[in-house]
């Protein structure tokens, strides 16, 4: 029983990390019709920002950790803003291949920059005592860091849904997903929403970076790559452009991955998730929550 609970929670916390990346990619794709390959690198950047902050602050404390998370989130958003303005914006009318190349290029450049400054080796993430602890749920011992990651993803999901449903910017984003040209025709500067959505995705990825650094207790210049691959898998399983789909698919992917790794053998999880992707693509090509048209 306790193994079952622990595996579930561990799976959900991995899924939460996938969602922190997938949510941004989902909204960006929905509105901008761009698949951003740069967002994995934002996870890496966030992780390094968190580690740098923790290291500079000296003895790890909870307050220091909070600052590290804030720094990672902010850096993710800032870098995303720069990428959108300088690289992605000129590519909106150029089609998917150009966007793919430009965002991949941005990712490679960021990884190379990090490596040239921080070196290719693992950098350790100092953690405050409070995060090393565990709590007891249903007889299972659950690390606080896992619970925190899951809570972060739930809060982000709720926040994004509220943003889309209740704010004017959210309304513009939903309308823009439907028909961006017509939004312009009402006198609205859609390109501002494009930036906003890119930055939101960057903030979430940066936050994901901090939490990924907690999860693996370290960062490498390629940290974000794995997460990016899984985030895309989750997007497709959930249905491209569907935020709810990404949320559910991330949880499913994380959990079955953990179970397969534990009960079958280490590494089997990756294969099982890929198998799930194939099954979904065969039986329901639009994804679990995808519609034939586009929507958020």
């Amino acid at each position: 029983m306790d193994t079952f609970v622990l595996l579930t929670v561990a799976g959900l916390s991995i899924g939460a990390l996938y969602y922190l990346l997938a949510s941004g990619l989902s909204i960006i794709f929905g509105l901008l019709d761009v698949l951003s390959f740069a967002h994995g690198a934002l996870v890496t950047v966030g992780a390094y920002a968190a580690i740098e902050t923790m290291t500079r602050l000296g003895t790890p404390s909870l307050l220091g950790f909070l600052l590290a998370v804030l720094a990672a989130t902010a850096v993710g958003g800032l870098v995303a803003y720069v990428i959108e303005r300088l690289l992605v914006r000129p590519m909106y009318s150029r089609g998917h291949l150009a966007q793919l190349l430009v965002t991949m290029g941005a990712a490679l450049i960021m990884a190379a920059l990090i490596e040239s400054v921080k070196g290719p080796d693992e950098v350790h993430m100092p953690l405050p005592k409070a995060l090393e602890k565990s709590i007891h749920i249903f007889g299972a011992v659950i690390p606080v860091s896992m619970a925190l990651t899951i809570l972060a993803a739930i809060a982000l999901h709720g926040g994004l849904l509220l943003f889309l449903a209740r704010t004017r910017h959210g309304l513009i984003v939903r309308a823009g997903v439907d028909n961006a040209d017509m939004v312009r025709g009402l006198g609205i500067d859609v390109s501002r929403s494009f930036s906003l959505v890119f930055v939101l995705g960057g903030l979430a990825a940066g936050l994901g970076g901090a939490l990924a650094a907690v999860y693996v207790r370290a960062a490498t210049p390629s940290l974000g790559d794995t997460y990016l691959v899984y985030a895309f898998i989750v997007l497709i399983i959930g249905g491209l452009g569907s935020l709810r789909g990404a949320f559910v698919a991330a949880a499913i992917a994380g959990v079955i991955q953990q179970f397969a790794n534990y009960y079958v053998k280490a590494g089997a999880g990756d294969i099982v998730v890929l198998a799930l992707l194939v099954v979904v693509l065969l039986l329901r090509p639009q994804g679990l929550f995808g519609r034939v048209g586009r929507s958020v």
Partner: protein
Amino acid sequence: MTTIGSVLSVRHLSARIGTSQILHGVDLEVPRNQTTVILGRNGVGKTTLLRSILGYVEASGDVELLGRPIDRLPTHKRVRAGIAYVPEDRDVFRSLTVEENLRLAERAGQVPRYDLVFDLFPDLADRRSQNAGSLSGGQQQMVALGRGLLAECELLIVDEPTKGLSPRVVQEVVDVLARVKEGVTILMVEQNLSAAQQLADDVVVISEGTVVASGTGEMLVDRDKLRGFLGVGRSEEV
């Protein structure tokens, strides 16, 4: 130089889509408080002309709104300068409710004219929370027109508002536009000759991407002559 009383002046407007030249030097004046109707066979570039005025299509030439050049501005700024746009095929936001469609047209610093819109389209008030995609074509046209009229504008641009509607609904749309035209300058494309006749103060005929005839609404009376301008045979329907 703007002709006195023109809300919109278009000069030497040329536009291409991809490699094909669609408009060849269009000149057009839209007089204040008048309704100008653009006619022309299918595919001659009427929609392209409207979309060039709005900045959706890359074009060369001058476009002035109230004497102010707008041809360098992006679409949303042209609209904010005082244009309301009701596109061909309505383009309502299908996944949004009627209310959300209208709310998007609200502008900062302006009181939205919900009274006017719900007075013109009482039906919309009852369907506020319905998804616009689930409405009939006529109702979607009401949403599109209401969305255009919600903010104040100097010029209302409407592209084939009666397209694809049943005769009864066509007349409803025409009746509404007849009320609307009392308060605003209109530039519209209308292929339904009876509808055009009821609304037009001025008529502009486009053929092969250029203006081939223009005059007052009287032009619509002599159908044979009109067919000549449109470049269609006597027996053909216009």
